[in-house]
């Protein structure tokens, strides 16, 4: 937006430089991203300028904290972990996007790339199909705001079909329109990097092939709670299907008593839902904007769990939820068992909560697993994000066949070894699809000589035939409140690794 007048010298230098650059690009082969999204073949690298470039693949590094490296034998299970897609209805009135300008921990209420979540999920599905796992774990926070249309879109992507990502009469009617004078939102028609027509393209119908293989759902906070925090109330329900939206910050917006901006807060907002409720109350008292109403935006509350189970089970199969909870077990082949724990709070708040009886149930399942290797899956990590998580970890510490504990929620790639007297296991979290690096995880469990196992894992970038996925990834990388400054991508030791686990003693 600042004009530059080239003087004669600069024009000559630019011409010379341009010619030189053309020559240089002629030499050397331009790299292309891997067609299957595997980061073993190629990665997306930021050379420090904010612009992503295709870089070399990252080979697997061996991690031997839990057992020595051994020759690898037969593969036992091939799993994909896809988590925190946050499929989002950006036109929904039941959102408080103006909170994002306060910074952490409220920054997730608006993201520049939030209109492109369906496309990114479709791209992740594409990469996972290329990986061809036996089972896909949908790790939670599949949707962002507990809305029916968000869930419908997400499930269509996973099942296959045609998705119409927009909502309301206009497809998109939200804070990123160029007619919005608020300078704190990224408006793709105006703000750099400019993408004219992005908002229209984002709601264009999309045909997707679907996962085409079994998948198992995990319940996340955003799946069941409004903004991942609030149990739906009459106010929020009315807002969701109504025609009043809260785009503009209320005048003299102030932080509720006791609330502190936390630079290292979880991207999922403050743990105490009362703060979000307080902001919402202020917002409702301030100026609102009229938008088109859409009944498909209805909030689902915890019925979302049933829908998830039904969708994952496939047509014709009974839905085995127990009391509306998504705890469950799934076997993969003869050698591996998956134990899914539902620690999402039913009374609001984004953190996890271990309910009474859960540790005992876990112990039962681990005992019943016998000789199978076990992978435990939750949405919120048990260490640090889950109240009572230590108890579950203590249970797992006792069982020698637990290989890994998988989670999402933090949007961060992280792998830590948890040693235990029984042999220890790997604590793995996978990044989200909404924040940079927008990756899923491939996992292959194999035998090693000597009776141990090795869990090979590497990241999968979403791939697409069109450009919207790349735009989303680029915007996510530029975001000063997103995955790049918070280093969600982790270190190489958190990404493409061979995790050795010694044999059971």
């Amino acid at each position, binding site marked *: *937006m*600042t*004009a*530059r*007048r080239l*003087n*004669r*010298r*600069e024009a000559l230098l630019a011409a010379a430089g341009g010619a030189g650059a053309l020559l240089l690009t002629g030499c050397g082969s331009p790299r292309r991203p891997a067609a299957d999204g595997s980061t073993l073949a190629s990665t997306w690298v*930021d*050379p*420090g*300028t*904010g*612009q992503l470039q295709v870089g070399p693949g990252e080979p697997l590094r061996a991690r031997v904290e839990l057992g020595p490296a051994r020759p690898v034998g037969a593969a036992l299970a091939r799993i994909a972990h896809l988590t925190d897609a946050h499929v989002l209805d950006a036109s929904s009135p039941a959102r408080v996007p103006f909170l994002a*300008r*306060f*910074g952490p921990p409220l920054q997730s209420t608006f993201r520049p790339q939030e209109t492109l979540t369906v496309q990114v999920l479709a791209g992740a599905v594409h990469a996972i199909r290329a990986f061809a796992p036996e089972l896909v774990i949908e790790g939670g926070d599949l949707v962002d705001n507990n809305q029916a249309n968000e869930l419908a879109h997400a499930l269509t992507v996973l099942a296959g079909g045609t998705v119409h990502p927009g909502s309301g009469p206009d497809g998109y009617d939200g804070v990123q329109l*160029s*007619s*919005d*004078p*608020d*300078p*704190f*939102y*990224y*408006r793709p*028609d*105006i*703000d*750099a*990097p400019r993408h004219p027509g992005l908002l229209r393209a984002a709601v264009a119908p999309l045909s997707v092939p679907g996962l085409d293989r079994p998948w198992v759902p995990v319940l996340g906070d955003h799946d069941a709670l409004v903004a991942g925090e609030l149990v739906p109330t009459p106010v929020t329900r009315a807002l969701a299907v109504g025609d009043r939206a809260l785009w503009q*910050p209320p005048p003299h917006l102030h932080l509720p008593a006791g609330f502190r901006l936390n*630079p290292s807060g979880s991207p999922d907002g403050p743990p105490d839902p009362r703060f979000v409720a307080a902001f919402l109350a202020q917002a409702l008292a301030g100026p609102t904007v009229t938008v088109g109403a859409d009944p498909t935006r209805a909030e689902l509350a915890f019925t979302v769990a049933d829908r998830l189970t039904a969708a994952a089970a496939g047509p014709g199969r009974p839905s085995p939820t127990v009391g509306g909870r998504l705890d469950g077990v799934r076997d993969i082949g003869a050698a591996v068992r998956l134990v899914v724990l539902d620690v999402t709070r039913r009374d609001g708040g984004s953190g996890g909560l271990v309910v009474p009886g859960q540790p005992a149930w876990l112990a039962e399942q681990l005992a019943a697993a016998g000789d199978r290797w076990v992978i435990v899956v939750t949405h919120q990590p048990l260490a640090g994000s889950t109240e009572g998580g230590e108890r579950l970890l203590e249970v797992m510490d006792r069982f020698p066949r637990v290989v890994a504990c998988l989670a999402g929620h933090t949007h961060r790639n992280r792998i830590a070894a948890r040693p235990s007297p029984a042999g220890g296991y790997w604590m793995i979290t996978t990044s989200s699809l909404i924040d940079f690096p927008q990756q899923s995880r491939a996992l292959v469990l194999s035998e090693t000589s000597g009776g141990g196992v090795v869990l090979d894992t590497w990241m999968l970038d979403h791939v697409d035939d069109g450009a919207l996925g790349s735009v989303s990834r680029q915007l996510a*990388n*530029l*975001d*000063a*409140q997103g995955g*790049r*400054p918070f280093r969600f991508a982790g270190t190489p030791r958190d990404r493409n690794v061979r995790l050795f686990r010694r044999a059971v003693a």
Partner: protein
Amino acid sequence: MSATPGGGSRGRRRRFGDALRMLARSPRRALFTAAGVLLAAAMLSAAVVITDGLGGGFARASARADLGDLIIRFDPESARTVAAKLAALPDVSGFALRSEITSVGVRFGAHRSGTAVAEVLGPGRRQGFAVVAGHRLPAGGAPDVLVETAWAQAWGIAIGDELDVRGLGPERVVGYAEGPDDVGYPLGAPRFYLTRAQLVARFGIPTVGPVNFAEVWLRDPRLVDEVLVQARDESYGLRGLKFSTRAGVQVLISQAAGLVIDLLVALSVIALVTAAVMLGAAARAEVQRRLRSIGIRRALGAGRWALAAGQGLEVALVAVPAATVGTLAGFLATHGASGRLLSLLNEPAPGAGLILPLLGSWALSVAVPVLGAAWPAWRVTRGPVIGLLRGTDVATSRPRFPWPARGGGGLTGLGVRLVAARPARLVATVAMLASSTAFILLMIALAGTLSSLETDPQELGKRYELTAAAPAAAAARIARLPGVAAAEPRYELTAVDAYELGELVDVVAYPRQLSRFEAPPLAAGRRPHGADQAEVGVGLADALGLAPGSALLLELPSGRQLDLRVSGTVNSLAYEGLVAYLPAAVLLRADPAAPEQIAVLLAPRASTATVSAEMRRIGFPPTLTAGAVARGAPLVAVLTTILRAVAVLDGLVCLYALLQACALTVQERRSTVAVLRACGASPGAIARLLSGAVVTLIAPAAALGVLAEAWLLGPALARLAAGYASLDLAPTRVDVLAVLAGLALAGAIAVWAVTRRALAEPVLAGLAR
């Protein structure tokens, strides 16, 4: 005349000797050529000094100072908070924080100022300014400062002197600094630098304190817009935010100088082409004159190359010393003033960087005449030798302009006939003279306009000279006063952005004709062309992320909101670019009580004093618009000096062109003159004949020149400057008459001089040809 084929040092010496002898034979001609080359060389070197020196000034300054790619100013905020926000931005390779304190009182000897700016620097080597003399600020708490070079020069502050700063006491000046992000004193406020460490040591304040200025360096400066977007998105909580990019700073700083550079370069090119054409024509005529002798030498066996080289060598013997003197002259005429201008802009002089370009311009000044002499000789020897010996060069068509049967015309008519008999030559010469005429007219108009131009950097873009505190209804009365071109109501008030960024925005509105009264240069988009449209300053655009098509929401003092669409952004220096221009209807709808005044645009060359008196008489005393002219006066003075130097050079070039053209015309008519003298023509008759010839050249040249300036050059340059200032470059009657008189005088001088020469030559010599 020897025609020794082959080379060897003997051959070379012989050729050298031949060339010298040819020159000695016609010293006047040699001097004339030398004068032409000298002027062209001076022209060229002046253009080099100006373009390379002034044009490259900002680039040199920002490279030397390591100027940041992004400069952000804001209301004081904790350094930790700001650092955290900057660290999260993409593409950042480094940043420096400082506290900029304005309205500091300083004293040095008899000099005093209450508007100095203290830059309190944080830690770090990269700071965005260059230390050009003395040494950097030490790390400890000693009371040392760096002062800006331009300020030091203006007040005579030497390194080692003590500057008295109110609140700090005596501070020792340890060096000079130049920061290209602002202009130097007296164009800007006096500026000095000191470290926070010094204040910590002396006053015990915390090491890390509030800052209000961040300089940011980017890995890839082309992505500055993306970084700006992220910076704004992160900036909630920071107030009074102002962004400026390196490119934006360059535009603002160079605006006034940029105008001059563009003008001077354009003018130099015109004059240079004129000089080149002229030298080429002279060389061609020279060759024509020597056709027979060239033919004889060809007949004797001289090669084409040797002949062409001989011609070239002759001219080279003249051109080399002339070009050397001319190059030096052009350099001396302009480098002092351009150096002063650079200093005012906080930019370094090119120094040794000019050597190579000047050498290049010298080489060009030699090469063009030499080639211009050798080439016709080469070409003319293309045909059979016998053609050369016959010395034919006559147009073969029927007479186009028959001599009238009775009386009419007489000798003057004959003179006209003689020149008109070669239409191609006539057209080329007239074109050349016309361009010189247009050019001189342009210089006169420009000099007149520039000296009356208000070039206070704050006021560029404002075209009205007076304002009066009067109701809108008075505008029609004021517009009817003599000397007033237009008068309109003007509304102005201060609004605030609706998103609590703390941006104070100046809102300016006119009922219509916004661009006539106030039109800062357009940076992007278009002028407002519909209701609810506004154009905004670049400063506001950067602060709020506006671009053509954006929505803008402002809060007025009345409490109402202004809902606008941005049609374009403008480089307005007023109010640091935090300004919005819109139609009065829109503003008045939101705030019917908006403060109003009448803006008065004067007719070209009307006197402010006269019109002011008139306005006082009818009860509306006016105020002058640009009250702070003093700030811009040094800039105007320097610009005028440069322009004057160039004007003189260019004027001389044009005079030379005229004399050359006349001399050539006569030279080719010597045999005719001789015949007439043999027939008994008196000197007066000869003068009449030559006058006819000269008038044939001058009259159409004058007419074409005036038209070219009025219709082509003037409007083109005015358009070029339109962004910066209102330039009225149409020639006035007085200007035109003056130039015509000058042309006539020059023509008369040419006729007189050439007649004298023609008469001095024996009749026989003319007949012998």
